C-alpha cells in the first residue's frame, strides 16, 4: 500500500471512541469535538464542532437529520481518503455514528466518488459487519432509541460534487450544481433536513478524539490547526504516498521525508492550490499559512510550470459545473491565456487582464471550485515572476 508513515489512526482501539461517546450526553460529545479544535480536513477548514452544533440546534420538523460522509475525494494529487476507506473503513463509519449520536441523526450516507467504485464492496462488507455487531441499526450498542444506519451512494464522475451542496444536489438526483450559501446545509441540507457533510478524514479522527480526549488532539499541531494531518505526496519524489504529520510541518520537511529535496516548486492543495517556490519551503502547512486538504505535488527541476497551469485549467474547464459566469467562462479564458504564454504571444497588458480576471473569479464565483480555480495561475504570476516574464514577447 501507499502509506509511508505510521498512522496514529491505525492505533485507535476499535469502537472505544463510540463507546466513550455513548457514555456521554450528545451535548457533551459536541463540546468534546469542539474543544479538540478539529477543522474540516477536506480543505475548507470549517470548525467541525461548530458545524455539528448548528445541525443539532437546527429545527428538524419531521425529526430527520443526516450525516453525510464526503468521500468524493477528487482533488488532483489526493489519495489519503482512499487509503482510509480501504485500510481503516471502520474508523470512518464509527466517526459517522458518533456524529449521528451528537446531532441526533438517524440516516447516514457515504457519497463515494464514481472513480472509487472499486472500494464499494469493501465498504459494504464493513457496513454488514458493523450491523451484525450492533454498531449500526437499532439501539446501537444497547443504547435505547439510538437508531442509525449508513448506506453508500456512488457518484458518477464530477469533481464539483466534492463541494458539499453540490454533493447534496447529486444525492437528491440532480445535476451537481452547488447551491447558494444560504440556507446552510446544517439548517436545510439533504431533503431539506439538517445535514452535516464531513470529509472522510475528519470523520476518521473523531473516534480518536473521543477515545483519547480533546486535549490530546488539541495538543498536536498549531493553535489554529490542531491535530495530525494526512497528506498525499506525489510527483517528482522518491517515495510517493500518504504521510501523517502534525499541522505546522514545513514544505521542506515534507520534501525531506519523501525524497524530493531538489524540488523546483511544490503544488500545495492540488489543482485548486498554490505553487510554492523554493524560497518559501520553510513555510508551514496549516489553515493559517498554506492550507490544503492534503494534496502535495512536487515539481522537480526542468518541469515547465505553464504545463502544470495548463493541465489544471483544462481540468477546471471540464469540471466546472458551468452555472456561474466567472467560473464557466473565466476558466477557458485563463486556459487560452496560459497557452498564449507558452506560445510567447501573451503581452504584459494581457497578462494583467488575466490576473484581474483571476481575482474576479476568486471574488465573484458561486462556490469554492470557481473561487479557487485561478489560484495556481495567480500564484504562478505572483511568485514566479521572472519565469513568466521570460515568456512575454518584448
Amino acid at each position, binding site marked *: 500500500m501507499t502509506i509511508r508513515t505510521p498512522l496514529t489512526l491505525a492505533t485507535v482501539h476499535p469502537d472505544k471512541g463510540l463507546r466513550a461517546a455513548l457514555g456521554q450526553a450528545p451535548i457533551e460529545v459536541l463540546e468534546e469535538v469542539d474543544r479538540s479544535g478539529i477543522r474540516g480536513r477536506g480543505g475548507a477548514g470549517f470548525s467541525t464542532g461548530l458545524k455539528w452544533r448548528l445541525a443539532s440546534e437546527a429545527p428538524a420538523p419531521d425529526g430527520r437529520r443526516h450525516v453525510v460522509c464526503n468521500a468524493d475525494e477528487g482533488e488532483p494529487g489526493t489519495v489519503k481518503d482512499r487509503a482510509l476507506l480501504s485500510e481503516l473503513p471502520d474508523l470512518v463509519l464509527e466517526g459517522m455514528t458518533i456524529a449521528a449520536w451528537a446531532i441526533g441523526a438517524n440516516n447516514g450516507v457515504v457519497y463515494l466518488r464514481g472513480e472509487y467504485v472499486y472500494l464499494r464492496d469493501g465498504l459494504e462488507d464493513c457496513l454488514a459487519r458493523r450491523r451484525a455487531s450492533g454498531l449500526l441499526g437499532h439501539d446501537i450498542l444497547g443504547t435505547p432509541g439510538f437508531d442509525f444506519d449508513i448506506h453508500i451512494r456512488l457518484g458518477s464522475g464530477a469533481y464539483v460534487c466534492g463541494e458539499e451542496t453540490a454533493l447534496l444536489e447529486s444525492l437528491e438526483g440532480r445535476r451537481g450544481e452547488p447551491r447558494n*450559501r444560504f440556507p446552510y446545509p446544517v439548517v436545510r441540507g439533504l431533503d431539506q433536513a439538517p445535514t452535516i457533510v464531513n470529509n472522510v478524514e475528519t470523520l476518521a479522527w473523531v473516534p480518536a478524539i473521543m477515545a483519547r480526549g480533546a486535549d490530546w488532539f488539541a495538543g498536536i499541531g498549531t493553535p489554529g490547526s490542531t491535530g495530525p494531518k494526512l497528506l498525499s505526496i506525489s510527483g517528482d519524489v522518491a517515495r510517493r504516498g500518504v504521510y501523517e504529520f502534525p499541522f505546522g510541518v514545513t514544505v521542506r520537511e515534507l520534501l525531506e521525508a519523501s525524497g524530493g529535496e531538489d524540488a523546483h516548486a511544490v503544488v500545495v492543495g492540488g489543482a485548486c492550490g498554490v505553487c510554492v517556490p523554493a524560497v518559501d519551503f520553510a513555510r508551514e502547512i496549516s489553515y493559517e499559512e498554506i492550507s490544503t486538504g492534503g494534496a502535495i505535488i512536487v515539481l522537480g527541476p526542468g518541469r515547465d510550470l505553464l504545463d502544470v497551469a495548463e493541465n489544471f485549467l483544462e481540468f477546471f474547464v471540464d469540471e466546472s459545473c458551468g452555472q456561474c*459566469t466567472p467560473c464557466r467562462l473565466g476558466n477557458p479564458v485563463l486556459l487560452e491565456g496560459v497557452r498564449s504564454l507558452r506560445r510567447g504571444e501573451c503581452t504584459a497588458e494581457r497578462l494583467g487582464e488575466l490576473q484581474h480576471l483571476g481575482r474576479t473569479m476568486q471574488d465573484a464565483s458561486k462556490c469554492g471550485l470557481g473561487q479557487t480555480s485561478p489560484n495556481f495561475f495567480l500564484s504562478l504570476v505572483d511568485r514566479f515572476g521572472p519565469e513568466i516574464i521570460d515568456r512575454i514577447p518584448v
Partner: protein
Amino acid sequence: MTTSIPLPTEAPATVGATVRATINGREVEVGSGTTVLEAAHACGVSIPTLCHHPDLIDVGVCRVCVVEVAGQKNLQPSCVFPITEELEVSTHTPRVAAARRDIIDLLLSEHCGDCRTCARNGTCELQDLAADYGVDHYRFGQRTEPVFVRDDTGPSIVFDPDKCILCLRCVRTCAELQGVWALGVTGRGAGVRVTTFADLPLSSEFCINCGQCLNRCPTAALTAVDVTARVRAALEDPRKHVVIQTAPAPRAALGEEFGLPPGTPVTWQLNTALRELGFDKVFDTTFAADLTIIEEGVELIERLYHALVLGEPDTALPMFTSCSPGWVKFLEHGFPEYLPHLSTCKSPQQMFGTLIKTWYADRNGLDPADVVSVALMPCVAKKFEASRPELTDSGFADVDLVLTARELAKMLRQQGIDLPSEPTSDFDDPFGTATGSGVIFGATGGVMEAALRTVLELVTGEPVEDLYAHADITPVRGFDDVRLVELTIPDAVGPVPSLLADLVPDWDWLRGVTLRVAVAHGTATARRVVEDIRAGGRFAGCHFIEFMACPGGCLGGGGQPIPTSLEIRKARARAIYAEDAAYGKAGHARKSHENPAVQRLYAELLTDGPGGATSHRLLHTGYTARGTFLPTGQKG
C-alpha cells in the same frame, strides 16, 4: 350567495423581526430575510441583474449583482444574500465595478451576433449592461460565427442558442411558472447549454408555445416568430381585403411600447392607427368573446343538464375553458384523457376568423380567398393556434396572420405613428359592438366572470346587477394562482329564454344548486389542478374551470410588451376592468348575451341557436391527444 373557498397556501414568510441595513450609506429597515437586492431597491439603490427576475426563484448564477458586504471575504450576490442581522453593503465600489466589468466581458465573449441586426436591439439587457459598464471592446474575445443551429422551424418561437447567456430565466420559467419543462440544461462546465430534450425543435416538444420564456429572456436567444413583413405585404397588395381583430389584452399594454405607464389603455387610438397602417376593417375580438360565452355557457348548461337531470355519469365535468391555446396544447400533451372536459368552443380568435371568411365575406361580396384575416393578440401560442390544420372551417385558414403587441408596435413605429397621440375612433361594423364581458377575457378570471354574468342572468331571469353590485363578480378576480368559488342558484328561477328553448324545458333542476367553479392561471398551476382532479380532490367536484396558460391570463401573455412582472400585470388588469366598468357607465352592455351584434348573428346566421348544428360546424372544434412521448428516432 357566493363563497370563496380558502385553499391551502404556502406558509407565509416569518413576519415580525426587522433588521437594519446600511446600503451605500443609506439606512433602511427591512424584514429579516429580505435580500440585499430587495433592500437596495427599497432605498432607491439600483443594482444591475441578469439572472434575477421578479417572477422567478433566484439562483444567483450570473454574478452581475455582486456587492461588497462588510465582514465577508468575497463579493456576495445581492439577489440571494438574505439580511438577517445588521449589515453594511456597498454596491458600486471600484472592486465591484471591476468584477462586474469582467463578468460582462465574459458574457459577451460567447454571445454571438450583431446588435444592429438583432430583434432585441434596444431592449436587450446585456446590451444595456455593456453600455453602462463602458464596454468599448471585446476584452475576452467575441464569437463571430454561430456554433449552434437556430431553431426557427416552429410557428411561434425562435430559439437561437448562440445568443444565450445561461441566465436560465427561460428554463426556470418553463419549469416553475409553466410546469412544462420543454427547456432544460445539458452538459457541464464550458459545455453547458440550454436545450430541448434530444435537441428536438421546440415545435416537436412538449412546448406549448406560451412564450413566457421569451418574455423573460434578457437577450434574443428566445424570440417570437415575426410576421410583420407578411402583414405588410398583404397591406400593400391591392387585391387583398385585409381586416384585423384586436384583443383586449394588447390594447391594455401597447402603450408601454410607447412610453406610457403600464395600465394605460390605448384601444381607441389604436383603431385610428390601424386604419392608417392600411387595414380595411378594424374589428374587436371581444365580439367573438361574447359569442364564445354564449356558446360555452350553453355547452356548460347542456353538460350540467345531462349530469344532473338525465343522470348520465359519463358527462365530462368539470368543463374546462378552451380559449387559451397554450393551455389546450398543455392538456393535449400532459392529460389527453381529460380532453373530453375541454369545451369544444373555438377560441374567440378562431370563431372570429371563421365568421370573417364566411358570413362577413358573404355579406360584403368578398371572395374569402382575397380576405386576409389578421389578429392582434397578446399571445404567441395564437400563432400556433392559427396554424392548426383543423381550424379551417371556412375552407381557408380561419386566421391568416397573428401579430403580437410587440410586432404591431414595431409596425407603428416604422410608420411613424405615435400611438398615444393618435385621435380616437370606433371599431368597424358589423362586429363593432362589444360588451364589458368580452373585454375582461383579457384577465385571469375574466372568462369565468363573463360566463357567470350570462348564465346567472339567463337562469334567474334577474339582472345580474341585482345579485352583484355593478355585475362585478369579484371572488373570481385577482392574482392568486387558483381561486375556487361556490355560487348557489336561488330558489327563484326565471323562464327559459327563447334562444335556449330547444335546450332545456325549464330551470327548476337548478334551484338551490351550488355551482362550484374555479379559475387557474399559469400551466404549473393548471397541472396541480388537473392532478388534483385525477386524484379525486377538491377540484374534481367543480362544474366549470377557467384555465389560462399564462400567469395573469392573456394580459400576461407571451406576445405582450417586455418586461413583465406582477406589478405590470396588475396594472394591465386595472386597465381592463376599467374598460369593462366604462361600458356600464356609458350605458352599454356589460353582459355577452346583451351584445346586439351577437344577437343579430343568431338571428341571421346561427339560426338553429347556440350549440346548434351551424354553430357546431363553424364555431366548435376538436382536439388531438398528443401525449408525452417524444419521438427522437431512437427505439431504445
